[in-house]
């Protein structure tokens, strides 16, 4: 009993001291900053002296070298890259775009793939999905992007199944053995916050440049959600189903194979959906290490400011993403249905037969009519030039140009630059104290300690200024996103219909590979800091709006009805009932917005930033693995600090509200 009472009381005292400490830290930070402004702060409190900074990069390099050469890991990875992986990639490449490799077929005609996709779409989700799936492939072919799209798909088709298998296996292991779970958890949270550039360089070094490295980076990137969904699903299998399996005399393997995995089908398939979507997002991004395909083309087109072609490629990527997402989601909800007794064989398998038939028909047709097999560059309906001119004319209109100019000016001169300079002017010590104070106030003791350690490490890496600039982009974009997104979400949540629509838009937008978000930003604001913030803003707004709507709609009706009966006005109801109850869910959205922002800010390095992302991108050209990792870890540590503080807060609030 005694232990129970102390347990019940201690969080409260913790809380008390944590918030008091937070206030003290906050005051101290203000004091330090004031001293700095007055010019009497010792310089080591402002920025760590160079001489104090340990050569992390060198140490890491040494460690990597040891693993690579002395432990012979490189031999193994190179063998894998040049052997089985290369073989699989070559095979899909041969089938999809006719690369001269085993099995040395001609490329599969585009019309055959489009036809098969249409039938699959119809089978999974009726006419709408059929139109979407068929339309996507027809568009891709007609617009003259078949080959680059298939280059991307050929990697995806190798990476997604491999990520699935590895994720499933690790997920099962983590579910079965507690120690695997304990070992994997922290690695997963770091992996999920690690900037993607940090995946790329090790992949290049261990698995050589080009598609193999791209495929490996993609696989690693897509594994974590598969692991999480697998364990989640397996844990959720109903105990009676498990007992029924045991009473049926299943051995352990039979249990897993015939009971657990099939019963966790839904979660596992949701994992498959996420694997596919992350693979697509990552494959596009691997353009940065020279992977050919849609991403590379988009990168090149945006680099040379060919907006029309960029737009077309963007549409292709979006269509592919939405198609893959909808097809795999439809598969999740597609449950088997029985056939009446005596249904003939061909009727039971009619979709398969029609699909194969259509595929064969167009394959044969392609042999006789070239157009059905391949659409050459010159035959394509691409309107790149025209769209380009249209966009550029549109942008040159006085109103448009005036507006974008004004936004850019106001944002840059009045908001962004002063904010950045202010953040940079805060002494490192004060900054860390502030962050720790925030984490303490939000999450309590544990997140506070982690915040101190994590930000302390960031300071010790010597990349402080760049880290602060990264943070500045993230914070300003998320604040702007909140200012814009919150009212939208609150308005949308007022009616069922608009909530649904908004959620659909968010769901769809979330399937777009992050790269896509750069296109409109660059179109409107050119290659400027404003574009960076704008692209992050839009990207981060999606989860924010989504969770806010979900949170507000999720408020139990009896509570809003109680408020109505108490005679609350709409605003009173919103302020006193709905928002407080929705707050934990909204916090999750806010957290995701920050995570998304950290992700996007690194990609925005492509536009030209002065932050960690820029440095990271530079490392890709070389073999500076140590530096690459240090930079990546900086991003990861900052993101994790926020993640921990906000999520702990949300959990606490949820529990307090009794959800």
């Amino acid at each position, binding site marked *: 009993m005694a232990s129970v009472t102390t347990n019940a009381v201690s969080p409260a005292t913790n809380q008390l001291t944590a918030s008091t400490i937070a206030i003290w830290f906050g005051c101290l930070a203000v004091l330090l900053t004031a001293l700095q402004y007055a010019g009497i702060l010792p310089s080591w409190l402002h920025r760590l002296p160079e001489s104090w900074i340990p050569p992390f990069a060198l140490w890491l390099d040494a460690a990597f070298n040891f693993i690579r050469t002395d432990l012979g890991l490189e031999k193994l990875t190179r063998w894998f890259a040049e052997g089985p992986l290369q073989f699989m990639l070559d095979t899909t490449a041969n089938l999809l775009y006719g690369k001269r490799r085993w099995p040395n077929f001609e490329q599969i005609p585009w019309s055959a793939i489009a036809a098969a996709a249409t039938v699959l779409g119809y089978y999974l989700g009726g006419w709408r999905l059929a139109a979407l799936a068929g339309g996507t492939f027809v568009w891709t072919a007609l617009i003259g992007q078949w080959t680059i799209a298939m280059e991307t798909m050929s990697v995806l088709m190798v990476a997604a199944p491999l990520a699935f298998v590895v994720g499933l296996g690790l997920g099962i292991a983590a579910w079965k053995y507690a120690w695997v779970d304990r070992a994997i958890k922290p690695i997963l949270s770091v992996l999920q916050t690690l900037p993607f550039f940090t995946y790329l360089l090790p992949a290049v070094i261990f698995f050589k440049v080009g598609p193999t490295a791209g495929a490996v980076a993609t696989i690693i990137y897509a594994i974590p959600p598969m692991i999480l969904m697998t364990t989640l699903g397996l844990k959720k299998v109903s105990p009676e*189903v498990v007992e*029924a399996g045991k009473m049926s*005399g299943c*051995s352990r393997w039979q249990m897993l194979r015939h009971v657990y995995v099939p019963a966790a*089908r839904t979660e596992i398939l949701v994992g498959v959906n996420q694997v596919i979507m992350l693979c697509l997002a990552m494959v596009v991004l691997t353009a940065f290490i020279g992977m050919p395909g849609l991403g590379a083309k988009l990168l090149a087109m945006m680099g040379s400011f060919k907006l029309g072609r960029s737009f077309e490629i963007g549409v292709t990527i979006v269509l592919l993403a939405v198609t893959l997402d909808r097809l795999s989601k439809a598969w999740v909800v597609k449950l088997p249905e029985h056939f009446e007794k005596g249904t003939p064989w061909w009727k039971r398998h009619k979709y398969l037969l029609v699909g194969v038939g259509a595929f064969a028909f167009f394959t044969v047709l392609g042999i006789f009519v070239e157009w059905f097999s391949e659409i050459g560059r010159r035959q394509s309906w691409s309107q790149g030039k025209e769209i380009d001119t249209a966009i550029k004319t549109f942008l040159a209109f006085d109103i448009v140009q005036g507006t974008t100019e004004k936004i850019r000016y106001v944002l840059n001169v009045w908001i962004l630059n002063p904010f950045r300079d202010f953040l940079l002017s805060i002494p490192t010590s004060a900054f860390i104290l502030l962050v720790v104070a925030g984490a303490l106030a939000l999450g309590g003791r544990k997140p506070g300690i982690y915040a101190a350690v994590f930000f302390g490490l960031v300071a010790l890496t010597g990349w402080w200024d760049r880290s602060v600039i990264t943070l500045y982009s993230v914070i300003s974009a998320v604040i702007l996103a909140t200012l814009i997104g919150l009212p939208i979400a609150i308005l949308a949540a007022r009616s069922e219909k608009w909530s649904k629509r908004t959620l659909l838009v968010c769901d769809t937008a979330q399937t777009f590979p992050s790269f896509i978000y750069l296109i409109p930003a660059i179109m409107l604001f050119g290659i400027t800091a404003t574009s960076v913030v704008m692209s992050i803003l839009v990207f981060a707004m999606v989860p924010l709006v989504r969770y806010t709507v979900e949170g507000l709609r999720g408020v139990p009706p009896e509570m809003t009805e109680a408020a109505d009966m108490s005679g609350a006005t709409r605003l009173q109801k919103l302020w006193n009932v709905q928002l407080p109850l929705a707050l934990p869910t909204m916090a999750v959205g806010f957290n995701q917005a920050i995570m998304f922002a950290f992700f996007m800010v690194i990609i925005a390095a492509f536009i030209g930033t002065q932050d960690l992302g820029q440095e990271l991108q530079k490392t890709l050209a070389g073999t500076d693995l140590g530096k690459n990792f240090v930079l990546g870890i900086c991003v990861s540590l900052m993101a994790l600090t926020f993640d921990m503080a906000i999520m702990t807060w949300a959990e606490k609030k949820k529990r307090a509200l009794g959800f």
Partner: protein
Amino acid sequence: MYSPRQNFHQTETAGHIMTTDAPVISCKNVWKIFGNDPEGYLAKMPAGRSYDEIRADGYIAGAKDVSLDVSKGEMLVIMGLSGSGKSTLVRCFSRLHDITGGTIEVDGQDIMELPEKDLIDLRRNKMGMVFQSFGLLPHRTVLDNVAFPLEMRGQDRHTRRARALEVIKLVGLEGREDYFPRELSGGQQQRVGIARSLAIEPDIWFLDEPFSALDPLIRREMQDEFLRLQEMLGKTIVFITHDFDEALRLADRIAIMKDGVIEQCDTPDQIVMNPATEYVRKFTEDIDKSRVVHASVLAKADQTGEGDAVSARATIHDLAARLVAETREFIPVQDGEQVIGAMSRQEALRVLVGAD
């Protein structure tokens, strides 16, 4: 005054076939404690600790020093409020739970000693279980669900299909073989559960509240169905319910549980007539005793009556009209051809009007 065993021999009145072999399931001083370190706790626990004291120590006693035998061909019904440990006890019998203390023997074999392989064999060949919320595999058709235990023991596709169809027919689901569980009603799903548990022709059949997820009309229908099956198959059955009427309809013996302890295990007649504890008395208070008590229970061997005898297997309720019209003080009771004694009319009338 009555030992369960003795009573059990008298329960031929309930109408089921019984033999007197060694018990099929025999458990002695069985403990099942949930918590962090149940073995360590049980070893150190002072004797006679109550359920609430154990709970205060941070453990839950699912089964508390339970000793019980189940004979071949018997239908034992376990009753009790929810949380009283019924499911826990049955899961100990099939070793879905490992017990914390005591021994459980099935056909003379201590099941806690069984290595995994033998345990699997035991379940593959001797035990069947039906679950409250069915526990069907959602991705398999009715046929594949029913054939599942056969598949697990490696029977070939043809035999297992034939056998599965046989049991599906037995439970009245023919024509639905290709349906998936979610396409069936609750009652039909439970039939699938029953068919699956019967597919391997088990000797021992566990049913954990099989009908409580069903609505009352279907429940009644399923009980009849179940009785029909039991008449045909004559298995050893442990049946859990929290519905007294259900228990009375089915049971040879009823075990009443509270807080992990079996308060009384006896024939329905004895439970109603001679409740062992206050709790059991409260539990049976609202029962119409005349529908439960048989003439045989009231028959006193040392009395002899005159005139026509009544059947030992008739309930007092069955005899109501006669009892009211009678004038004899003692009425002979006969089981089959043999007169086993006579019952007092006064006593019978008291049971009839519920004056006890």
